[in-house]
């Protein structure tokens, strides 16, 4: 490289002594190390990786979505992660979790664990509830009892059922309210008022012995006449009863007959409808079949011609084979099989 005056320019590094160059490199290396350590220091995960942890066991009925990266939350705070999981002999899933020591303090004997997957867009987590302060801390490698909490799909399924029920109920209410005419309600209320007025007047008249009911309840001569009339009516009813007894058998027989006819007739309209439909379909089918059958002989003939040509080709191919002369020749039949007379 040359400058404006025509002299060649060299890089400044070539102007440094060897020891100066070594120092410069050392500065860069040390600077890089400092930056790396600073980054490690500010990285939360790395910091946490070096913190003391407490291991617990959680036995889950299933491990849907659980991986070694699944986060563990204690009292809502991220407190650790899954270390491993395995299927036990009794077909449960044993999940080993690591919880940082400071968060483990919140895990007590009454703490519970569950899988939470409320957000379908995020992987599930293992949640551990905060224990009561009165309970002692759960020791390391102890089992945290698991409770069944609704996950998002289950909640959604339940919600859908509830929404469906609500929809049905609303539909029914809608039908009910649609069937009621507000004018009718007004009329019913007016009728009720009128009826209550009449009842009041009627009870007054009965109490004073007025009208038929009043006479019936308070007039003694009417009572005697009524007793006599009832006696006559009683004798008439007895003779009627005797006739009715005779008729009963007839009615019973008629009733049985009616029942039988009714049950027989009940299915008749449906049967007729099905029969009509069946006949229609059958007719259509037969028409189609009929039209196709008319084409059938032609189709058979053409197929046979095609087969014949194919046969000719095969025979031509077989001509190259030494045993072609031994192939059996087809027999020819001219007439149909003999039929007996009058069949």
């Amino acid at each position, binding site marked *: 490289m040359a400058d404006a005056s025509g002299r060649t320019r060299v890089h400044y590094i070539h102007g440094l002594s060897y020891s100066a160059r070594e120092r410069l490199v050392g500065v860069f290396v040390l600077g890089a190390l400092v930056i790396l350590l600073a980054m490690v220091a500010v990285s939360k995960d790395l910091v946490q990786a070096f913190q003391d942890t407490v291991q617990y066991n959680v036995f889950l009925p299933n491990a849907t979505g659980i991986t070694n990266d699944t986060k563990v939350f204690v009292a809502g705070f991220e407190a650790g992660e899954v270390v491993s999981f395995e299927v036990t002999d009794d077909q449960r899933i044993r999940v080993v979790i690591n919880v940082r020591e400071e968060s483990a303090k919140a895990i007590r004997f009454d703490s519970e664990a569950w899988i939470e997957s409320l957000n379908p867009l995020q992987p599930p987590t293992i949640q551990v509830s905060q224990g009561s302060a009165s309970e002692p801390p759960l020791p390391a490698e102890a089992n945290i009892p698991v409770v069944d909490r609704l996950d998002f799909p289950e909640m959604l399924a339940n919600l859908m059922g509830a929404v469906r029920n609500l929809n049905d109920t609303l539909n029914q209410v809608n039908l009910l309210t649609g069937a009621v005419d507000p004018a009718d309600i007004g009329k019913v209320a007016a009728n009720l008022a009128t009826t209550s007025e009449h009842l009041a007047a009627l009870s007054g008249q009965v109490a004073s012995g007025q009208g038929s009911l009043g006479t019936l309840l308070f007039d003694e001569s009417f009572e005697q006449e009524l007793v006599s009339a009832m006696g006559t009516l009683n004798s008439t009813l007895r003779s009627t009863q005797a006739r009715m007894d005779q008729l009963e058998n007839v009615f019973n027989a008629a009733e049985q007959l009616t029942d039988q006819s009714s049950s027989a007739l009940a299915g008749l309209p449906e049967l007729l409808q099905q029969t009509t439909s069946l006949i229609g379909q059958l007719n259509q089918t037969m028409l189609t079949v009929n039209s196709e059958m008319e084409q059938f002989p032609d189709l058979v*003939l053409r197929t046979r011609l095609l087969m014949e040509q194919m046969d000719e080709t095969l025979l031509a191919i077989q001509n190259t084979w030494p045993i072609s002369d031994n192939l059996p020749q087809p027999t020819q039949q001219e007439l149909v099989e003999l039929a007996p007379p009058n069949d």
Partner: protein
Amino acid sequence: MKRSTLTLPYLLAMLVLAGCFGGGGGEPAPPMRPSDIARDTMDAGLEAFGQHNFANASLLFERSYQEFRSYDDAAGMTAALMNRAEIDLLMGETVAAGRRLASARTLVDRDALAHFAARLSYMEARQAQQAGDAEAAGARLEAARAAAGSDDQLALMLDLLAADLALHADPATAEAQVATLLDRTEGRGDATAARVQRLRADLAIAQDQPAEALDALRAALADYQAAEYRPGIAATHETWAMLLRAQEDWAGVADHLTRAIAVRLWMSDRVHTASDLDTLAEANSALGQEERANAFRRVRDYLRGDSDVDWGRVRASLAGY
């Protein structure tokens, strides 16, 4: 100039290979001759006939007749006409059968087609019997016997026909013939044996022996069913129905005719179906089923009309019953 690399051994090898493989594929198959087309059509008709698909078989025999006629093959034309006439006889189309047999007779006589003579005479005898001309039937039967030669199956058929003719003329004279036929067909269990059993039933009916007739009909139906011979199955049910009709067992008549009609309908048999419907209507009237009887009469009248039969319509009309 560059010299060719093909040497004599290479050339010889190529010639040998061409000779080996050129023979089969080098020459295209020759176009079909008219006789091949006619023969194929005839074969298709024979196949349809074997399956009792008489409607298709009729069309195919008709077409093969036209093909044979197109190059003036009298033997082929005769065979096609006789095959078509056989279907007519089975379907009860007596007039049409007579017309075709007459055409066949002309060809046989003109071109001295002796190998058709016996069979043609047998068919003419059957046609005459169906037409009610017993005398002509007898004459044709004798002509067939004279020409039959050593054809055992044809001889058996001729004896069957002779017994049938005798039965209708004088049942007493037919008794010995029927007994002989029973001996000859014993253990065969085929359609011919079944026909002999049916002949025995006819004889028993003529001699007023209903129990014997019933026994013979059962045997006939069993043989026909074993042979899956549709025309015979239908004919047996029809004879059975006639036996029960004489006893005024109308429910039995209706049952057997319904079964016969099902078979006849499958074969698109116009004449027998109409006849069966007529008797079935009578049975239903006797049973108090007037509406059904009228429905059957309507279909019967349609089948006996002049128009071509729409079998889809017929089957649909009868499907509800």
